[in-house]
């Protein structure tokens, strides 16, 4: 079976084995290895946390922007782009397209061009104070 593997598959197997080996490292070893690579472990760790926060923030920003324009996006309706760098969705009310890139926060699509043309269609009068 191994003989039939391409160079590409073998290299992938090698790197995946190295990736798995990282998961078994103790806390001390993980910190020490980063130092040995020549990087500051705390800085590298916080940079990684920032990368995660950045993705979450990008989703918040695009959601807020669309909400301000009156578009309705199903929070579970985002789909990953074929080549992974961006996510896209459509307004449930008017069907206009929007995409954003988590790494850069860049947003694109006709949904950002203006107010949702259908946003007033299902307007419900504010029920402030009537509920209590």
């Amino acid at each position, binding site marked *: 079976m191994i003989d039939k593997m391409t160079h590409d598959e073998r290299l992938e197997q090698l790197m995946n084995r190295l990736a798995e080996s990282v998961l078994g490292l103790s806390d001390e070893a993980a910190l020490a290895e*980063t130092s040995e690579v020549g990087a500051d472990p705390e800085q590298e760790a916080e940079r*990684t946390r920032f990368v995660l926060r950045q993705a979450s923030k990008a989703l918040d920003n695009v959601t807020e922007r669309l909400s301000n324009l009156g578009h309705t996006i199903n929070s*579970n309706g985002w789909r990953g782009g074929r080549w992974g760098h961006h996510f896209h969705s459509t307004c449930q009310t008017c069907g206009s397209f929007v995409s954003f890139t988590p790494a850069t926060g860049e947003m694109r699509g006709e949904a950002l061009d203006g107010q949702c043309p259908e946003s007033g269609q299902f307007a419900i009068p504010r029920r402030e104070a009537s509920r*209590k």
Partner: protein
Amino acid sequence: MAHLLPYPESPAPPLPPPRSINASPKSALLVENDQSLLSFLRRSLEDDGYAVRTAANSEEGLRLYRDCGPFNVVLIDYCVPPNYGFGIDYLAPLQKHGIGLAMAIRQIHPLQGIIITALAYRDAREVPRPLELMHIPLLVDISNFQLRSLLEKIEVERAIEALTSSELLRLRQFAEFRVRGLGRAARGRTGEDLLQEALMRTLIGAEDLQKGRHWNKDVDFVGHLTGAMQSISNHWKRQFKETEAYLISEFPVRDAEGQEQSPLDNVASEHAAADQRLIEQDEKDRVLTTFKDDPEATQILQDFLDGLKKSEIKSRYGLDERKYAATMKRIRVKLLGRRNGGGQGEKHDR
């Protein structure tokens, strides 16, 4: 403003684990005076595995928070009255005591996950709130499962903040090696891209890979993210292979007279193209060349390439666990150093 809660003056300590609800791993405080909504939200939270404490007014809510907080999440009704014990206050719904309570709780624990329920409004833009709470999640529609999405997001954000330095470094290195294993299929993506993609799919939260990956809380967050990265990188690889086959088979082939040949003539070979094989061979050789002065590392890498298990490699060369671990460490440090331009070899050029 007279009824708004006073802000505590003490400095904010870091967010410790919840003190009072020990039986459940997840806890929620629900501050709501409408009984039907209280029952509905309580049931939704309990269905999601939360142990729920409830309060019917903002003062009781703050007292409960001080006694039992922090919680995994606090749900506060935007219009909750200040105190229900002294009869009905007809002005209370207009006075936004939920906002006062949210600000008081944020003063105690700035990182406390809070959701304001503002069902009296049809969308979030209409809910007046101070600048400090402008980004707080608002529940304005109970019918489309918005609550579950908000709870999931708060859980994920809490988990990100709770990651230790070593966990973050392991995640980063895992991502780097997985992307490196993709070779050309990475298409310029980095380990950070893979990590962000894993988080995005978690936040999207659907169970289908194309849409997202729900975080099953039986698995810890690091385990979840590494599983997601593994699955996403495999998916990227499959996509790359599918596209390559598509491009080759779609390439129009005509004979000398301009007639299109049989589509079967265009079926791609199952063997990689010669130029592609050379690129892959080159990358494999470059990795091995990096360790030309380290025979143990070369042996282990060659055995990885041949698909041998750890136990087989150890017995083959008589390596004990300590020596094996030390060699693995040298390999990781050198490859990551090379990737980061750390001067421990040539810089990897993808």
